[in-house]
């Protein structure tokens, strides 16, 4: 009986220690804890999902890590149902008439963040590479192996912007260098980054997240609650569509 008691005490102490260690480790790496987010990419040739440092104010989501894109090596390939497939350099795209707007982007994960974005409207690209009459949308192919579809109607919306600059500076790798599209009335997964190729298509196609998750291919921001990162994540009611605060 004594031996049994000792074993129990020993076992009890060991289990208590293990529990405490697990608790401390769990607390240290809990979701939302900055300590839980190692900085995998700073100083490397790669960029990917991160929420450390300045990105606590504007989370970065990528589908997969990608090698940083060099402007000199990059062109935008435009193909599919277009009159003539073409390639555009970054300088050519930067030469298009520029628009600037302030927009808040909202992730389907519930957070949002705001910035000033500059770039060109889709109509400018359509002039250079018109779609065939049967085209109804565009499929985006991104550097992180992400794909997404947007209709021509959504691309021609006056608030949809093809972005090359953010807050007055060239897009950072994290925010989608060299080219991203913002659609402020749709969740972030409908806002492709690090675009390398677009294809005009004649039917709706499911993007990466809509194929594997419970995410609608429409992606319009719905009435609900927002947790803006730049406003302390304080919950705010939103009406759906573009967030205007």
């Amino acid at each position: 009986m004594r031996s049994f008691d000792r074993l129990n005490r020993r076992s009890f102490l060991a289990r208590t220690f293990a529990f405490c260690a697990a608790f401390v480790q769990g607390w240290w790496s809990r979701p939302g804890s900055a300590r839980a987010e190692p900085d995998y990419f700073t100083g490397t040739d790669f960029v990917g999902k991160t929420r450390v440092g300045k990105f606590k104010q504007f989370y970065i989501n990528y589908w997969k890590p990608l090698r940083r894109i060099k402007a000199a090596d990059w062109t935008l390939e435009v193909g599919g149902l277009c009159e003539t497939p073409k390639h555009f350099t970054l300088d050519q795209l930067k030469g298009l008439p520029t628009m600037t707007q302030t927009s808040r982007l909202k992730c389907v994960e519930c957070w949002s963040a705001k910035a000033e974005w500059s770039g060109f409207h889709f109509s400018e690209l359509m002039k250079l590479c018109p779609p065939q009459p049967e085209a109804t949308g565009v499929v985006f192919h991104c550097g992180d192996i992400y794909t997404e579809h947007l209709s021509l109607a959504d691309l021609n919306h006056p608030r949809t912007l093809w972005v090359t600059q953010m807050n007055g500076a060239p897009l950072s790798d994290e925010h989608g260098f060299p080219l991203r599209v913002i659609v402020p009335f749709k969740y972030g997964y409908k806002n492709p980054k690090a675009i390398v190729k677009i294809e005009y298509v004649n039917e709706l196609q499911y993007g990466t997240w809509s194929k594997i998750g419970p995410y609608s291919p429409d992606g319009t921001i719905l009435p609900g609650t927002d947790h803006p990162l730049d406003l302390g994540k304080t919950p705010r009611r939103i009406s759906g569509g573009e967030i205007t605060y």
Partner: protein
Amino acid sequence: MSLGLPVIASASSMVLIPEGPFTMGKGNQSPHGPERRLFLGPFLIDLNEVTNEEFQAQFPDHRFRKGAARHPVTKVTWYLAKEYCNKIGGRLPSEPEWEKAARGEYGFIYPWGDHKPKKRPHPFYSGVVKKKVGFNKQDVSPYGIHDMAGSVWEWTADAQGPLKIIRGGLWNLHLDFEYSKAFEKATIPPGERLSFLGFRCVRSID
């Protein structure tokens, strides 16, 4: 709480809401309050949200996918919704009219009563789930009106500044029933075409 039998004049697809008092708002805080008793004269309101095929009958250029003829029409601006109602001899509902039709005389939280269903709606999807109007047999108001908590949000005639007030709600994985209380409201620019936003019409009775 129990209500008397609903008064339904359903020779057409509209339902008579009888004149009388009703409870509007909830609590004392914005945006749902203040709670108060109002009086409305009689009016007719659509039994269901306007469908794609009904909308197409007035606007032949309207296109929708196969199988969606009886789904609620969405992606229409407030201006088009208003024009549709005018074309058929009606108008968009005021906020009080919409809320009385949804909550009944005594101000239910949901159209069917004060308790949210135990079963979660559409548990595996985050977007708008459209079905034939009137499909949900629980989402029925004391006056027999369908889809005032689920389905899609709806334009009203009323405004807050430059924005139009929308009422209703929709159900999905993330929203659950949280935004389907019949006193909920939101505001949208009238020129927007949104996939979660449709409408229904009312007619005055002189």
